[in-house]
């Protein structure tokens, strides 16, 4: 075969369209984007409102005489009232406190325990890894909601139990990610260097590996929080969630009786909307963060 006279690979431009079309791909991912910051803004608003709820100039969420029964949304009650005349706006904000708390504790739980287990498994490998990985596999191989049901059936449904239960469910996905990331980092030079310098295992894990593992986990944390909020909603809807206080899920349950739906759909639709927007914001932000971090990883030599 005679050499191609130009000295370049003859295959690269036989499909000119691909070569040119790919020029635009990397640019879109280098910034987090407007949507990301919009999601963050929404979350900030929700969190601030939820935290400051007791001090905000809003109605008492349990006050049954705030308005008439099932008032439609209007000037007096921005989100309307429910079957007991309670202000939906106030209830939504107070409901956010429970939903967000559960989501937050759950994912924190998952991050701490799952992250720890994953780090240990990825670092020590061998039999330790096998046991932990099997644990992850077992946890993942089972429908979460049913597992949650089991635990709640045994332990009751206080805020703490519910949060911890959902936390247990998030251990496996977080743990697997932590393990995979740890595995990829554990072979790198700076870890070897630390060991040569005589650092203990703990020191290596905490000082060298943990910061690197935290990066991808942060993206997963956002996604996990969204899932936890939804899961809590599901449990609440089944009547199995937080018995002290009410969450968005419980509000949805209360609003979903056919009569109420017919006469005052906002009682269910408002908390649904709040949950939808929050979950969407968390999902979107988590996804964008993940893409953004992936690109950075690749730029620094890949994992």
């Amino acid at each position: 075969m005679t050499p191609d006279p130009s000295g370049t690979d003859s295959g690269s431009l036989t499909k000119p369209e691909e070569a040119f079309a790919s020029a635009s791909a990397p640019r879109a991912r280098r910034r987090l984007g407007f949507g990301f910051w919009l999601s963050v803004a929404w979350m900030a608003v929700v969190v601030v409102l939820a935290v400051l709820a007791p001090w905000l100039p809003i109605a008492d969420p349990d006050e049954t005489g705030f308005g008439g029964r099932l008032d439609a949304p209007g000037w007096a009650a921005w989100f309307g009232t429910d079957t007991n005349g309670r202000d939906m706006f106030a209830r939504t904000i107070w409901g956010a406190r429970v939903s967000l708390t559960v989501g937050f504790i759950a994912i924190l739980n998952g991050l701490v325990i799952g992250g720890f287990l994953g780090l240990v498994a990825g670092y020590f490998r061998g039999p330790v890894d096998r046991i932990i990985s099997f644990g992850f596999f077992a946890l993942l191989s089972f429908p979460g909601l049913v597992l949650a049901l089991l635990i709640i059936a045994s332990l009751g449904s206080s805020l703490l139990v519910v949060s911890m239960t959902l936390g247990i469910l998030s251990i496996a996905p977080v743990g697997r990610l932590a393990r995979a990331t740890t595995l990829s980092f554990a072979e790198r030079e700076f870890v070897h260097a630390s060991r040569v310098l005589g650092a203990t295992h703990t020191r290596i894990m905490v000082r060298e590996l943990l910061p690197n593992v935290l990066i991808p986990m942060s993206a997963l944390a956002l996604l996990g929080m969204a899932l936890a909020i939804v899961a809590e909603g599901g449990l609440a809807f089944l009547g199995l969630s937080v018995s002290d206080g009410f969450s968005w899920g419980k509000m949805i349950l209360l609003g979903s009786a056919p009569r109420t739906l017919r006469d005052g759909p906002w009682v269910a639709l408002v908390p649904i909307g709040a949950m939808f927007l929050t979950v969407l914001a968390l999902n979107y932000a988590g996804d964008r963060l993940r893409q953004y971090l992936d690109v950075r990883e690749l730029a620094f030599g890949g994992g």
Partner: protein
Amino acid sequence: MGFLARRLAALLAVLLTVTALAFGSLNVLGDPLFNVVGFVASVDCDAVLAGEIQDVSGQTAGGRGDCEVIEAARREHRLDRSLPVRYGYWLGDIVRGDLGTSFKNEMPVRQVIGEKLPKTLLLMLVAEVFGLAIAVPWAVAAAYRANRAFDRVSTVGSFGLLAIPNFAMGIILFYFFVVRWQVFPSRFEDTDLLARLKSLVLPGLTLGLPLAATYQRVLRTDLITTLQEDFVQMARAKGMTDRWIMFRHVLRPSLFSLVTVFGLTTAGLIGGALVVEQIFSIPGLGRAVVEAVIRDDFPIVLGSVVVIATGFVVINFAVDVLYSFIDPRVRRDA
């Protein structure tokens, strides 16, 4: 074959673990006696025997009613033995098909589950059918004009769809189609297959739409990748129409990720069924489990967990088998 055997072993191990955990938690965290005889366990039999109080069944002092039951239960379920031993016996019972008796109406758990399980399975089937039937044309349309208007919109759409929790979706559908427009029945109609299917349309959609969104995203990506292949260009050069090429050349090689995701989500469908059955009043297994949990009817809970876990394992294993057929490399990997 080694691969499949190992997977099977792993899944069985999971099954055992889960049942052990379930059995253990219910027996350790709760009162084992309670698990067996229910509220009757609260009777203080010593006091009854001493004639100091009446027992719950209303018999006079000296009446042995409940306490006899308690004693009988103690013996029968070997409550004086240790937990692992009891677990072993319980497993033995399970394998022989005896899942215990419900507290509520003394019916054997097996019968209760047997009545309710088919409806849940039918619901899951309808949901999958909806999911695939919507996802495939959607993905094809999006991949065909990748990155153009329709594709962009549908990406946003799937994101949105996936952000709606299934119970919210169910309520919204219920509100519009049952309450306002009254197109579908509000309760599950069990008369004949057609009525059952009609009752399952909305619940099926509730579960199926998010499924479709997930399937569509995955399938679309694979389709786009396959469309870059040279043989697509060759087929166009042969004068085949775009539609022919899409369905007869491109679709089949692009199904890998879809099959994987199908396996992952089908098992998760079980969880979704719990919620949907509540909203649409479907007397399926999900609803039975939830009610049992609320009522502390432990035999039902335990039995259902076993059934669900087994189903889970079966589905996962079936997916593994399917996968190894599609991709022979999986079989070879030792």
